[in-house]
């Protein structure tokens, strides 16, 4: 069954001479019904006074099984009517003499139920719906359904984050674990104050080969790329329970030099020009530690950097493909910004820069970074994509952060300072990481993760308010969450097959 959006007739033609039935029908769908279908079919309505529960349990259960006929639509002239009655759970025809009802001719598309009702359901409910019957399963699996479902999720105000708690044990003998779990943590954001405030375990799995405790997630449309402290990258869609280990990428020599807690992040995004999701990672062929060169007054580093892209949903599994080399060294401490057009990586040698990798032309260019005071960069700086915009949080001073935003586009970036935030009750001498996660529907409330706590921060005033204490809510002991939180996004996107 194909799923299509119902016909929209924004500019219906005028039919002065047609009778009204014809007029309706032609307006509605452009399907010209013959005179037989256009007969008047008066409907006799009964007052519904039966309680809903009773109605479902005791009345609807006796309805005729129309699904059979619906399936053989070729042989059924009346499948439109059957479908509506099927949809509506209305008693039809002679089987129920108490409530004779003859349905009016209609041009409701067969797939109204799938395209208009099921489309609003979360992935988990849809998994159950696939068990209902064959036609539902086929409808939900259709690429048009998956795309529309994703687009509706994109348009929905964000209401929760996805947390991947990892117990932080600084012991080389316990650097890996076989478990990984994804929790959905609801946010209590006005005006859509969550009714279910308890976190929910969305998906967990065991990976016998082990996953390093330190990971770094990035996300796009519900696909979460989980990088590790090795060259292994996982991609997961927690909403559908798909978890895939990508083939090992080119070895990143940076991993041999940095501390064992560093999981260089990868970028994940949607290449709209090729209709594919792609994961991108940088790697160092040779890596020397950066040092401050007194002669030039700049940072310097001996390095040879490469960059590769893995296209998801390619028949045969796909492979990492080399791109042009990045023009500058990329720093693994800072998460890239993944937008609909490009990936933005941060580089700090010899001077701080932003490097853009365009998804369309697959080429690098240097773009403007926020005009921080004196062009300063701090290893605690963080970046994110927020509602289509680029966000750069500069750790300007102890417990003080400057939130910069820029529009994403083909041109160079024009940054503007949205607010200055002073952390309330900050402990002196402690380094705080201010990770921007998402912006609420009002366009003003920025949700950020600091330590194990989610805060809401007003972009207008810079005031902070605690939203969720994740360590307490998830009851999973001490863990470092700052790097382990992304927005929650419900989608049916498959990792291995292009089902969209």
């Amino acid at each position, binding site marked *: 069954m194909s799923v299509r959006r119902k016909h*929209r007739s924004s500019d*219906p033609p005028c039919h002065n001479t047609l009778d009204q039935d014809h007029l*309706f029908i032609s307006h509605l769908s452009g399907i010209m019904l013959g005179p037989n279908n256009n007969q008047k079919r008066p409907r006799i*309505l009964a007052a519904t006074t039966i309680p809903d529960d009773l109605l479902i349990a005791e009345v609807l259960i006796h*309805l005729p099984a129309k699904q059979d006929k619906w399936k053989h639509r070729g042989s059924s002239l009346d499948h439109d009517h059957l479908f509506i009655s099927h949809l509506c759970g209305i008693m039809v025809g002679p089987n129920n003499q108490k409530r004779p009802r003859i349905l009016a001719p209609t041009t409701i598309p067969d797939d109204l139920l799938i395209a*208009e009702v099921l489309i609003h359901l979360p992935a988990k*409910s849809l998994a159950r719906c696939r068990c209902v019957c064959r036609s539902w399963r086929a409808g939900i699996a259709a690429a048009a359904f998956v795309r529309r479902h994703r687009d509706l999720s994109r*348009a929905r105000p964000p209401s929760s984050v996805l947390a991947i708690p990892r117990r932080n044990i600084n012991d080389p003998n316990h650097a890996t674990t076989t478990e990984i779990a994804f929790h959905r943590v609801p946010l209590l954001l006005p005006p859509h104050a969550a009714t279910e405030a308890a976190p929910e375990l969305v998906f967990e799995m065991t990976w016998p080969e082990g996953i390093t405790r330190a990971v770094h997630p990035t996300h796009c449309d519900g696909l979460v790329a989980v990088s590790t402290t090795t060259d292994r990258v996982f991609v997961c869609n927690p909403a559908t*329970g798909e978890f895939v280990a990508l083939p090992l990428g080119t070895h990143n020599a940076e991993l041999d030099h940095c501390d064992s807690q560093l999981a260089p992040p990868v970028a994940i995004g949607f290449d709209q020009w090729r209709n594919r999701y792609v994961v991108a990672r940088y790697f160092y062929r040779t890596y020397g530690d950066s040092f401050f060169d007194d002669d030039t007054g700049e940072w310097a580093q001996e390095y040879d950097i490469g960059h590769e892209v893995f296209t998801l949903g390619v028949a045969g599994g796909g492979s990492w493909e080399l791109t042009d080399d990045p023009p500058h060294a990329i720093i693994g401490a800072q998460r890239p910004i993944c937008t609909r057009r490009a990936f933005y990586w941060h580089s700090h040698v010899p001077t701080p820069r932003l490097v853009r990798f365009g998804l369309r032309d697959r080429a690098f260019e240097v773009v403007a970074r926020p005009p921080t005071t004196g062009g300063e960069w701090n290893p605690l700086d963080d970046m994110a994509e927020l509602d289509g915009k680029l966000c750069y949080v500069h750790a300007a001073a102890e417990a003080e952060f400057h939130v910069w935003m820029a529009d994403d586009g083909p041109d160079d970036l024009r940054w503007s300072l949205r607010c200055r935030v002073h952390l309330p009750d900050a402990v002196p001498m402690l380094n705080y990481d201010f990770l921007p996660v998402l912006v609420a529907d009002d366009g003003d409330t920025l949700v950020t993760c600091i330590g194990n706590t989610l805060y809401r921060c007003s972009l207008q005033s810079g005031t902070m308010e605690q939203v969720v204490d994740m360590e307490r809510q998830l009851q999973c002991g001490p863990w470092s969450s700052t790097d382990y939180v992304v927005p929650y996004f419900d989608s049916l996107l498959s990792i291995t097959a292009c089902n969209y």
Partner: protein
Amino acid sequence: MEVDKGKGEAEETRKVAEADRDTVTLKSSDGKLFEVSKEAAARLSTVLAGMIAGGSIDDNGTDLKQIGSEALENVVDYCNKHANSIPSAALISSSISFNTAPFKEPEEWERKFVDRLSHDALFDLVEAANFLGMERLLDVTCHKISEMMKGKSPDQIREVFNIKNDYTKEELEEIRQELAWAFYDD
């Protein structure tokens, strides 16, 4: 000829009077009459907009033989509430963008509007909204039905929607295993 001419004039006058009216009268399948603001009807229903533009609105009640009085009452109620819920300045601009706008979450009054409906009334309203080309009302009613389905087991869904399970036992077991994660809290 004289008579015909007079008739024509009367027809003209009637049409002018009709065009001047700011409401339209709709007639349900069981003959009940409902008045609704012409502006709201034209803005919210592509079908009524077409009829108003085409001059095929009947002053004595435009027959909507496919819609029962209960559903039509809800349609009219929705149109009137919708007309009140939007500041008048926004009316004109929204008339064009309405049908192409992406789905927006139901507003508080829309939630209340569908929450009070029985299953039957809700399903009738879906049908009426689809028939009249009322995009927003269709979105809101379908969204409500989808909310009713959340957390229901396949058996419960089949029951509500009266769907026959056309899988074999083996197939169903296979799908269930494939989707085991979706049944954690069953």
